């Protein structure tokens, strides 16, 4: 390669670094919370403590928008003072753990879903392997949430992960996946064990085992006469 091309490459690299650094730093350097936005809704001490939590979380690699979002949620819902601080502190701690588990490349929504799954006692190793197996963040998010909800309904980790992964591999929609835990809970209320309920609904997803038909298998919600929130069409 001649000198002309080397010079162009060096110049390009220098401009790229110079141009993209502010973009890369945008998420990390922007303050997680805007004190002015909270000024007329919270007392100064609460704001100071929240700013401190947000700053610490940001320094440990937690995306600031997640903390901001949760603070705004709490403020809008009228949560104040120590209760708000404790909730945000707990959320930031769980996000920090998820960040350590999944690394710097994890998208904010995946970190949030991983933190929720961990809260439902899904082991770290299973969270990590599930995210590694589902590179599409939308699938990872809906999958982790469903596994967490299934754990919360009493389903052991292994069958929960297996059933969710099998459903994702079959192309089951996010809506139907999310409805899985509600269907399990219904059957549990009727006396089945959580594991049995999941097997009956999702089928046994172990290799070589055929899926059993079930009237409770998650399906589209058409046919219900109750008012429901429903995705309609493209915007």
């Amino acid at each position, binding site marked *: 390669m001649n000198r*002309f091309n080397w010079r162009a490459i060096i110049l390009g690299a220098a401009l790229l670094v110079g141009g993209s650094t502010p973009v*890369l730093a945008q998420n990390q350097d922007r303050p997680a919370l805007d004190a002015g936005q909270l000024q007329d809704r919270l007392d100064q001490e609460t704001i100071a403590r929240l700013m401190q939590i947000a700053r610490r979380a940001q320094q440990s690699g937690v995306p600031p928008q997640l903390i*901001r979002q949760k603070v705004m*949620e709490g403020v809008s819902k009228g*949560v104040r003072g120590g209760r708000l601080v404790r909730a945000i502190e707990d959320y930031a701690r769980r996000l920090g753990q998820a960040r350590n588990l999944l690394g710097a490349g994890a998208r904010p929504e995946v970190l949030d879903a991983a933190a929720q799954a961990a809260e439902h006692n899904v082991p770290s190793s299973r969270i990590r392997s599930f995210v590694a197996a589902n590179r599409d963040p939308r699938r990872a998010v809906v999958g982790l949430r469903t596994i967490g909800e299934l754990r919360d309904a009493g389903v052991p980790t292994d069958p929960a992960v297996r059933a969710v992964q099998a459903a994702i591999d079959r192309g089951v929609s*996010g809506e139907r996946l999310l*409805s899985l835990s509600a269907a399990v809970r219904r059957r549990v209320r009727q006396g089945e064990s959580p594991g049995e309920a999941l097997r009956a609904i999702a089928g046994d997803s172990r290799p070589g085992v055929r899926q059993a038909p079930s009237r409770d298998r998650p399906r589209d919600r058409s046919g219900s006469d*109750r*008012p429901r929130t429903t995705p*309609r069409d493209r915007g």
Partner: protein
Amino acid sequence: MTMDPRLQAWLDGDIDFEALPETLRGEAEAWSELLEDVRTHAVAGAPLGATARVMEAVQADAAGGAGARLAAWTTWLVRPRAVRISPLAAAAAIALVAWSVTQFALSPIGTGSLDDRVYVQFLISAPEARTVALAGDFNEWDPTIQLDDPDGDGLWSARVALEPGVHEYMFVIDGSEWRPDPNALSYTNDGFGQQNSVLAVTPVDET
């Protein structure tokens, strides 16, 4: 005009200068000076692609009419050519492309393109309510999306464009009572002692 064959033979290098008769040597020296002059001053050849352009022009002229002009345009469009660009301009172009890519890859939650959005119909039965609003992670939990009950039957609804993905939301009754969607697919602990409703929005091309 014809050239003496002996002078031609000397120019071709077939015979030595001394072999020329005296009468031709003056003319031979003049040729020699002329050739030296050409060798000294003609340092550059024809411009790059000149032959091809001349031939195109000749062919187009020969063909004539709209067809010829179209052929000339087509040739102009598809013919490879050397583009001269300064190293600074090339580097700036590369940096601009790379910057655009990083901008796209690092776009935070909630900045997807409008084309990806899916309209979601939110519905809740609240006959006792005077106002019903919607708040969620899609509007920073600011209950500004108002639901309507045009016929006063207590069934409130709003149509909202959301990006594909999982969203958490709640209804706000009369400006103060936060209520989960009784018909949500799933619920999650909000960390403040309540349950958020959870909704999964699937892209239209995946439904």
